[in-house]
């Protein structure tokens, strides 16, 4: 009897009570950066103070789960009022009508006084739509991080904007060291896997392309293939980077701040993590990706945005909050370092380039990159064919890893990979 009572009471509480204070406006805000947990709390506290009667709930979901969960919300018509939207998915979501059309807001108020119109337009372009469907809060790009102390020890000059791939390779060779002479490399010049943020930058730095946009099929051009060949040779021929399987114990960027690799290519957003994890352990900086032999380059970058639920009950307040977190109301300290703010005030503030905090003046580079022509490899079904998130051992990601792990030859992998990728693409683009 007692058991029955306890169980029933327990069940009632299992409903996950979210107490709603009546008369208030409640906004749901979904994001995916776990590192921002504390910052988000502060942002919310600030906003709620400035806007009494509004309460915000922030839910953070890891990237591997984010899109599944948010689709469920979409299906239940219960999308959060404000949620992180990625350039990889905006096309599909705009098409399906799952995001709020922001034109009415953008055009009538002072949005472009606060935000760079160019970034908004890039976002619109990526969504392949005629309306503004997302509010970009940052531009992210990729950079080449390097360990200054390691460079000093090996007597190599720091990378510059003029670096070519040969410069890069010869530096990597000098930076691959077996410090205790036991036959095992203790420091690699460079490390990479098949991941999008590590491969695409090189392809675009050589003005290459993976996807033929006229046919919407995977068809890497010569420049792209040269980039892939150069990279895979780093492992197979030059021996300045380890096969992916050897580094599988680490979480990606850990190889850099763990001082296992002297150079690392990844998103500029890692600045945040590196500042925290490296601190003052060693000196580091970043430059843009070295230019390829074609001598033409495009920057690999894209906006990260927020979108509004199409059926949000409080569009004006949601828009206000979205602008707030997109940069208007927050300070740089609550902003993820390494992302280039779309809010003019933040990007142009003196704190953005703080010489006292690593990487110091290198941050100027980001602003420069943000102004340059940008492109991405995003398409519908991108995560499936590229190998992202929950499927990161598959797709193009897995194929490239197979090459550097010595499991498949370059040509074999490219052939097999192309078939698989185009099967996926043909499903989305007939």
């Amino acid at each position, binding site marked *: 009897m007692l*058991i*029955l009572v*306890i*169980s029933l009471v*327990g*069940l009632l509480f*299992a*409903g*996950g009570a979210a107490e709603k204070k009546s008369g208030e406006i409640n906004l749901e805000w979904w994001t995916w950066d*776990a590192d921002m947990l504390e910052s988000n709390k502060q942002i919310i506290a600030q906003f709620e103070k400035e806007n009494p009667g509004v309460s915000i709930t922030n*839910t*953070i*979901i*890891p*990237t*591997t*789960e984010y899109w*599944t*969960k948010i689709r*469920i*919300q979409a*299906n*239940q018509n*219960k999308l959060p009022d404000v949620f992180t939207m990625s350039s990889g998915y905006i096309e599909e979501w705009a098409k399906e009508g799952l995001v709020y059309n922001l034109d009415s807001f953008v055009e009538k108020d002072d949005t472009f006084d606060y935000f760079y119109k160019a970034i908004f337009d890039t976002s619109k372009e990526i969504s392949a739509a005629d309306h503004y469907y997302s509010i970009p809060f940052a531009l992210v790009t990729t950079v080449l991080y390097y360990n200054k102390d390691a460079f000093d020890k090996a007597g190599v000059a720091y990378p510059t904007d003029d670096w070519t791939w040969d410069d890069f390779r010869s530096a990597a060779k000098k930076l691959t060291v077996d410090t205790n002479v036991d036959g*095992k490399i203790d420091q690699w010049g460079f490390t990479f896997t098949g991941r999008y943020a590590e491969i695409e930058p090189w392809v675009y730095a050589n003005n290459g392309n993976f996807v033929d946009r006229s046919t919407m099929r995977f068809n890497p051009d010569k420049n792209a293939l040269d980039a892939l060949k150069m990279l895979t040779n780093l492992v197979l021929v030059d021996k300045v980077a380890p096969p992916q399987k050897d580094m599988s*114990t*680490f*979480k990606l*960027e*850990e190889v850099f701040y*763990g001082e296992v690799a002297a150079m690392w290519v990844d998103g500029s957003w890692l600045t945040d993590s590196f500042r925290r994890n490296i601190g003052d352990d060693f000196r580091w900086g970043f430059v843009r990706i070295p230019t390829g032999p074609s001598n033409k380059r495009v920057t690999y970058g894209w906006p990260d945005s927020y979108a509004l639920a199409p059926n949000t009950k409080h569009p004006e307040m949601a828009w206000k909050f979205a602008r707030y977190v997109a940069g208007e109301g927050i300070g740089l300290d609550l902003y993820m370092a390494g992302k280039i703010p779309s809010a003019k005030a933040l990007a142009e503030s003196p704190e953005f380039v703080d010489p006292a905090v690593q990487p110091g003046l290198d941050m100027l580079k980001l602003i420069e990159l943000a102004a340059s022509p940008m492109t991405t490899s995003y398409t519908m079904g991108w995560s499936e064919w590229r190998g992202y998130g929950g499927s990161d051992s598959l797709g193009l990601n897995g194929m490239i890893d197979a090459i550097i792990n010595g499991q498949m030859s370059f040509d074999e992998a490219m052939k097999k990979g192309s078939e698989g990728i185009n099967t996926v693409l043909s499903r989305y683009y007939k």
Partner: protein
Amino acid sequence: MKRTSTYYIRLILIILVAFFYVFPFLWMIANSFMSDKNILSVPPKIIPDLLFSKNAFSNYKSVLVQYNFGRYTFNSIWVCTLAALGQIIVCSLAGFALALMHFRGKNITFSLLLLTLMIPVQVTIIPEYYIFMKLGWMDTYLPLLIPSFLAGAFGTFMLKEFFSQVPRPLFDAGIIDGVNSYQMFLRIYLPQAISPLATLFIIAFMNNWNDLLRPMLYISKRDLYLVTVALSQFQNQYGVRWNLLLAGSVLSVIPLIVVFAFSQRYIIESTMSSGIKG
């Protein structure tokens, strides 16, 4: 029995084998007491350095507080206890009816129940997911609990067998006393079943604790996470700081080991008896 050399060989073999099964846990515990510096050393350090330092439990403190495992453990205990309670209620009712009552469709129900043991969860999970989605129960514990409060194949089977074995005189005495069905169940049969019910509680608790798929699919809000899900996400979210990850693993395993240690006799015996019936 004579202590022949065969005896000693056997003993040594058994100890080696048992070690092979326990060793990963020992390694897990040892490494959970390593500092960041020592965890990634080659060759690996055997002696956990933190254990003998002042901050012996710093990794655990980190995991419990900073990474919220304390909260997750509480969530898991809460959910699993409720689910297990649900199972004892439902399975004892069903087991009793199947053992002692007459009704058309009894055999069909029982066969269907057994059949469900064979069907992998993946076959039914998508529609199940959709049902809960439509009900709007995402991000609550209801999808994890309601099924436990409805049907349980293993538990029902176990209790049916048990109730069938209860000596006949008890039943006859009840009939003579003129009890109705509920009284027969509550007053006469249920009190006999403390042991299998306790076993069922523990087994249901364990199965729920170790479940990954359902909590992962139904719960997005961090505060509601269960331990297994938190652990699996740990690798993605916070980088693989192995010493912390292993500390978290230890935390996820310890409650079960404790429960298991106290009840292993029951669990192992119930496994054995199910084997005999098979």
